[in-house]
């Protein structure tokens, strides 16, 4: 007898739409919860810094509508974490608005909607920097400095299970979360039903990317995870997919530094002694996971800061002599930029595709291709300067002075004789942890009733 069964239809809701057939199969399997994560830091620092989504609203709305209608139809809670790619307050508000609009559109009977925010003020972080518990760096970073904090535009905290559990305890039928640990979205539901922490967090870990834990490869398909007396099971809902020992164990290492530890606000899931058993062709059972509660709760912070406005230029080369001397060509363009703008106060980047455009200095292939494409990025404090900077660098590739070049009418080819306005450049300024006394402190929760009477 299962303690809890959860379906997950999408590993990053909004980034690409869920697949309907396996989702409906999942819904028909009578789960206790329908849950999905909707965010990622994979998308780079621009959406968080500029408070935008990288996912089209139409795709977000489509999946939220499918999940809301299904969860109301079978009468089970729906949980979303990391709303709108970044989990900022404006993204939570957008998802809350979509839920209300979908409820009104379909005349759904009243239900309780809960949501929480994850943004953290710079003042709150600044207080910690000067305290006896500094804001510690992750992944080899130094503790956060006031200077880096000053360079930051927006910070979100990564919620653990706490705000989700609070909203479940308050009887919410639909929960929209700000930035959250992927696995906490599911673990909270399992803990709410009385599961062991180790099983709850493992269930979350394996479900967070939906069908990425199944084979053959095929994203955005629904999977069903369950906890019973013996541990965790996970089952593929797509008729041609299977959750195998290899696919489930393999997923434990996906997108993480090592396959053994998953850190969340409040503890660490230890997967060192996990044991995997195939119990039917589409289902694998996992046992042996452990959970070690943290002695002190530290919450992960993500922060992004604006570097400048950005323009992009594109130039290509076919002359083999020019290709052999591409470094000199780029040096010429840089020198022209320095002549006009000086040596600092901007950023200029050249990605040379056909040489090492994808891998940069890590590229082991040293022989260039027969043609190159150079992507130029100019970043500067104002859009006007970024445009001129990028235009100077791109157009001067055309005028580069190579002593023995035969083609003296122009050194590069252009697909566009212009530079293109891109998103402003941001960078990840904060990848740190903040100590808290109350794990709910950074995640204020709200509830309201949505829907129409009879």
């Amino acid at each position: 007898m299962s303690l809890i069964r959860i379906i997950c239809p999408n590993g990053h809701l909004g980034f690409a739409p869920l697949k309907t057939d396996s989702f409906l199969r999942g819904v028909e399997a009578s789960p206790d919860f329908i849950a999905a994560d909707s965010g990622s830091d994979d998308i780079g620092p621009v959406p968080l810094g500029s408070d935008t989504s990288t996912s089209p609203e139409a795709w977000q709305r489509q999946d939220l509508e499918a999940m809301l209608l299904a969860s109301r139809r079978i009468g089970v809670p729906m949980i979303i974490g990391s709303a709108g790619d970044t989990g900022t307050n404006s993204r939570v508000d957008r998802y809350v608005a979509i839920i209300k609009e979908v409820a009104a559109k379909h005349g759904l009977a009243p239900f309780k909607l809960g949501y929480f925010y994850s943004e953290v003020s710079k003042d709150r972080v600044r207080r910690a920097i000067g305290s006896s518990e500094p804001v510690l760096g992750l992944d080899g970073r130094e503790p956060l400095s006031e200077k880096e904090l000053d360079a930051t535009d927006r910070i979100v905290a990564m919620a653990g299970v706490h705000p989700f559990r609070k909203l479940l305890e308050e009887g919410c039928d639909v929960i929209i979360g700000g930035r959250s640990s992927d696995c906490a979205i599911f673990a909270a539901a399992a803990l709410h039903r009385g599961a062991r922490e180790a099983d709850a967090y493992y269930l979350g870990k394996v479900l967070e990317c939906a069908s990425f834990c199944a084979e053959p490869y095929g994203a955005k398909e629904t999977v069903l995870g369950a906890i019973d007396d013996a541990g965790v099971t996970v089952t593929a809902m797509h008729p041609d997919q299977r959750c195998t020992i290899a696919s489930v164990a393999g997923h434990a290492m996906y997108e993480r530094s090592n396959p053994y530890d998953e850190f969340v606000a409040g503890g660490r899931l230890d997967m060192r002694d996990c044991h995997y058993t195939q119990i039917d062709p589409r289902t694998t059972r996992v046992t042996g996971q452990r959970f070690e509660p943290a002695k002190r709760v530290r919450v992960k912070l993500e922060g992004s800061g604006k570097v400048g406005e950005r323009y992009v230029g594109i130039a290509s080369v076919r002359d083999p002599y020019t290709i052999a001397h591409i470094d000199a060509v780029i040096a010429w363009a840089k020198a022209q930029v320095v002549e006009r703008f000086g040596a600092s106060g901007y950023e200029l980047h050249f990605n040379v595709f056909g040489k090492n455009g994808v891998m940069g200095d890590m590229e082991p292939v040293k022989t260039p291709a027969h043609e190159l494409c150079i992507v130029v990025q100019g970043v500067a404090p104002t859009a006007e300067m970024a445009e001129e900077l990028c235009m100077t660098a791109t157009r001067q590739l055309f005028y580069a002075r190579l002593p023995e070049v035969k083609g003296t009418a122009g050194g590069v080819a252009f697909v566009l004789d212009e530079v293109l306005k891109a998103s402003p450049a941001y960078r990840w300024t904060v990848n740190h942890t903040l100590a808290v006394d109350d794990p709910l402190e950074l995640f204020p929760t709200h509830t309201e009733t949505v829907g129409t009477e009879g």
Partner: protein
Amino acid sequence: MTKLSELAKTIRSKNAGVDKITFDIIFTDRAVYEKVLASRAITAAKISSLYGIAQERIADFVEYDPACAIKFTIYRTSPSGSAGDSDIFGAQQYAPLLDIDVPV
């Protein structure tokens, strides 16, 4: 000698957070996996040499038996998505692994 791409089912790379890229080499046949391990064709030192990076940039190197996988993680030189980053997701950094010669 056999190319690694002929021995492994999956060879991939992807961000592990904003400061690291992680690489997974996954085998379907445990005997093949064990032969590759025994060959010592894939070690932290070999990876460091193949990618031209100092060994200190390798944050983790794990032989992960439950999934018949070799997994290693490297630090980026600047965080993902900074201007000039050519691979925001870190998804195309595995290609040099495909051609590693394994003496099996």
